[in-house]
Each structure stands twice: as structure tokens, then as C-alpha cells.
């Protein structure tokens, strides 16, 4: 069961402390479950390994738990989480290779605006990830072969022993459903998260 609480409803460190007051490990686990995938996506870009990214993100959450009082100084939990993940990932890569990578330096200049953009993109990725799993079986299989494996319709048809026209129909259905689900998700969120999703919508409009 998921709370609807996301990084953006919990804005400051104090908000998060409110949520996990009196050592509520369950609440903190829920907070983790709502946010870890987005952060793993960020770490993965640097360490290029999902399982290491998972370790890094989990360690970061545990450190936050162990020094909860420091949250009082945190103005934006979102920015704090993203910057911590990036720093931890860079440290990991540097420790592994001991070479300074030019492109990693750019991460140190991440502004709050950059973070907001990355966060929204990653939220869309997680949303799509969940919605794709809900597609009807054959439709889902075709869609994944196309978008995750990069196959052309022709090759999907051969692989699944169906006609290319059937592949086209499944893709059409998938896009129709996903568009509906994403727009629906954007429109039915409560007022707190509406401001955030308004900008997600703008990603479509622009």
C-alpha cells in the first residue's frame, strides 16, 4: 500500500521529520519505496550498474535515518536527496577508477532548477514503467520488444509469428492506453501535487 506522499509534498527537512517522528521506521520505509527508483536512475547514469546504484541509494537513506536531526537544516529534501546521490555515485566511481572524469565535474554544478527537471523526467519514467506492466499481455509483449529491445515491427512479427498488421495494432493500442493513463494520472492528483504535474504536462505541450 502506497501513501500518496512524494518528494514534492514533503518539501523541507522538517516535513520529513514530521513524517518519521518517534522513530517510525515504517513511515520511512514507505518514503523510501516512493522515491528510490527515481534516485537509482540518477546513480545508474554514473555507476552504470543497477545493483550498485541500489546499494548507494539505500546507504544514503540509512545515513539520513541515522542522523535525522540534520534534516532540520535541509530546505529542500528533493535537492538534498539528488545531490547526495550524485556525490555518493561520483565518489564511488572515483574510488573504483581513481581517475577524474571530465563529465562528472558537471554534476557538482547541479542547480535547483536542474534538479527539478531531472526529478520530473524520472517521475515520468517510473510512471510509465508501472503503466507498461498494466498493459494487456500480448500488447505489452509487442510494446516491450519495440521500445525496450529496439526491434522494428517487421522483426517483432517474425519473432512472435504474427502479422506486421497485428504488431501495428498492438502498438497503436499501447500508445492509446499509455497516453490516456498518463494524462489521467496528471489530472486526478490532489491540489498539492497539481503544481508539479502541471509542469509534467508542459513537457508534453512543449
Amino acid at each position: 500500500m502506497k501513501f500518496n506522499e512524494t518528494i514534492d509534498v514533503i518539501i523541507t527537512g522538517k516535513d520529513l521529520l514530521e513524517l518519521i517522528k518517534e522513530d517510525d521506521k515504517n513511515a520511512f520505509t514507505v518514503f523510501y519505496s516512493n522515491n528510490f527508483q527515481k534516485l537509482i536512475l540518477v546513480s545508474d547514469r554514473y555507476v552504470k550498474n543497477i545493483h550498485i546504484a541500489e546499494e548507494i541509494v539505500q546507504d544514503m537513506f540509512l545515513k539520513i535515518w541515522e542522523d535525522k536531526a540534520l534534516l532540520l537544516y535541509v530546505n529542500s529534501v528533493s535537492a538534498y536527496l539528488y545531490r547526495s546521490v550524485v556525490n555518493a555515485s561520483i565518489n564511488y566511481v572515483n574510488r573504483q577508477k581513481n581517475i577524474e572524469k571530465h563529465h562528472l565535474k558537471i554534476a557538482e554544478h547541479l542547480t535547483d532548477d536542474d534538479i527539478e527537471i531531472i526529478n520530473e523526467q524520472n517521475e515520468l519514467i517510473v510512471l510509465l514503467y508501472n503503466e507498461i506492466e498494466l498493459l494487456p499481455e500480448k500488447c505489452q509483449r509487442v510494446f516491450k520488444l519495440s521500445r525496450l529491445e529496439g526491434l522494428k515491427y517487421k522483426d517483432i512479427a517474425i519473432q512472435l509469428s504474427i502479422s506486421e498488421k497485428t504488431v501495428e495494432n498492438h502498438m497503436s493500442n499501447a500508445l492509446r492506453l499509455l497516453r490516456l493513463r498518463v494524462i489521467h494520472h496528471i489530472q486526478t492528483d490532489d491540489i498539492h501535487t497539481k503544481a508539479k504535474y502541471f509542469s509534467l504536462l508542459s513537457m508534453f505541450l512543449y
Partner: protein
Amino acid sequence: MKDNLTFQNIILSHFNTPEDKFLAQQVAELRQTSEENEKIFQETKTIWDTAALTKRLHELDYTQSVRNFKGKLAYSESSGTRSFGWLKLAAAVAVITAAGIFFYPRDIKPIELVRETKQQIDSVYLNDGTKVILAANSQIRYPKVLSDTGRQVTLVKGQAFFKVHRDVKRSFNVLIGQSKVTVLGTSFNINYNNSSIQLAVKTGKVMFSPNAVSSSAILVAGQAINYNLSKNRLEWENGSNSTSWITKELVFVDMPLDEVCKQISAYYNVNVVVHDTMHSAKKFNANFKDSSLDEILKVLKQTYKIRIDTSDHQITIKNL
């Protein structure tokens, strides 16, 4: 509704076979016919592109990860917060917050300011947090307090780099002559002179409207256009070094020789003429920081079989 799916499906066919010029043309035309069509295109494209990025998440098991974390958390101990320390901290925070509250009067008339540069570059912070870096011999006009309904500034002349503060409630517009750039929060470079407007996007997305009648172009990070004012013609360009005038860094990634020369020409402000009759296929990959033109030409000579002749007003590059 039937019509919407038809257009969606044409778009999908186009994405599946991007090399099909007829489909590409069809999609480009249909997009222009209505706002609804453009919306369908953007939705379809966003889902098509973003879906591919979900692949990495499949290597993760959601339930196992949460269970795993819960287990680690169970064994973790919080550092004891001594109650006195807690109270002192809370008191300190309260004092700082109280001192921070103050009121400033609302302007009745919007005050407009002008910033102009001569030989030196300069930067301006707008009251929403947007940063504007002005090149030499440039001028912008901006309100002291940006309006609640929409943020608008004017690039009167020259070149400027904009790092726009993201505000989803108000779009940000830059007026350049008859043209307009519209964004929510991104960073981009505009170079405005008598004959053209050059726009290059560094992060985010922007919409460029040449004038009130022509259709707009949407640019994403890495893209650039050159809008010819007299011919009313828009051309797509390579925007990789659009902010070199600030960073003093030139980056070449898989760039063909003629494009490299175009970028060098723009940055060093010299005329470069290329006679590459052998059509050098090799792509150029290099980074230059604070380099002189001679240093770069030297590297080019090492990379390609060319002869470089420098005269007073132009550099000519020929095959050996």
C-alpha cells in the same frame, strides 16, 4: 476520436521507420494543421522516447528492494539526540526565521530597466532568479519586477545567454525584434544582429516564434537554429559551441571537417574557406580550453591531410 488514432498511427509508423522520407514529410505537415495534432505528436513522442528509458528499472525488483531496505533499517540505530541540544537547535532556527521576515512595498508602476554593455561582458539577475549573461556591445530591457501573469524581457541588440528560473505558473518570453522565444525554465543562447537571429538551447526546451504569422519551432537541448531575417528562413545548425564565448572552451564530438571550420570561424571571427574535394570522412573529436586559433589549426593539420594558408583576411584549407 477515430481521426486522432489515425494521426497517432502515422506518427508511430514514422518512428518505426525514420528513414522513410514520405512518412516524415506527412507527419511534419499534419503537425502544422492544428494544435490538437501537435499535442498528439508531443504526447506520442514523449511516451515513445521515455518508454525506452524504463528498461533499466527492470533490473530492479521493487518488492525485494523495499524488503531489503526495511531489513537494513531494522538494524540501524539513530544517534541519540540529547534533548538539550534539540531545544537549542529549535530555538536557533526560530530566531533566524523571525529575523528573516520583512516586508517590501509593492511597485505601483512597473519600472523598466536597461542594461547595456560596451567592451566588457556583464551579468544581470532578474527578480525571479533568472540569470542573464550579456556579451560585449549588447543590450537588454527588463522590468524591475517581473509580472505575475508572464515574464517578459527584450533583447534589444547583441548576444546573451539566459539561465531561466523554472516557474510553471508563468512562462518566460524574450522579445527579439519581431521574434519571440518562449520557455518555462531552461538555458539558452541568443545572438541577434542585423541579418539574423541565432538561437541555441543548452538545457530544457524552448519555442521560437519568428513572427506573429509564421509557425513556431521547438528546440531541445543541443539544438540550434539560424533565422535569416530578410529571407524569413529558418535553418537548423550545430549548437555545440554556442556558449564558448563564456566558457572559452571549444568541444568537438564526431564533427565533420567542414562543420569544425564553421565553428572555428564563428568563435575566432575569421573567414575560413574549405576546399575539401576529397571529402575527408574522418570525424573530429577534441576539446580546447583557452586555446589560440594557431593551436587548433595545428591539431587539424595533424588529423587531416590538409594544407592551411593564412592570409590577412582569410584562412584557406585545401587537401594535400
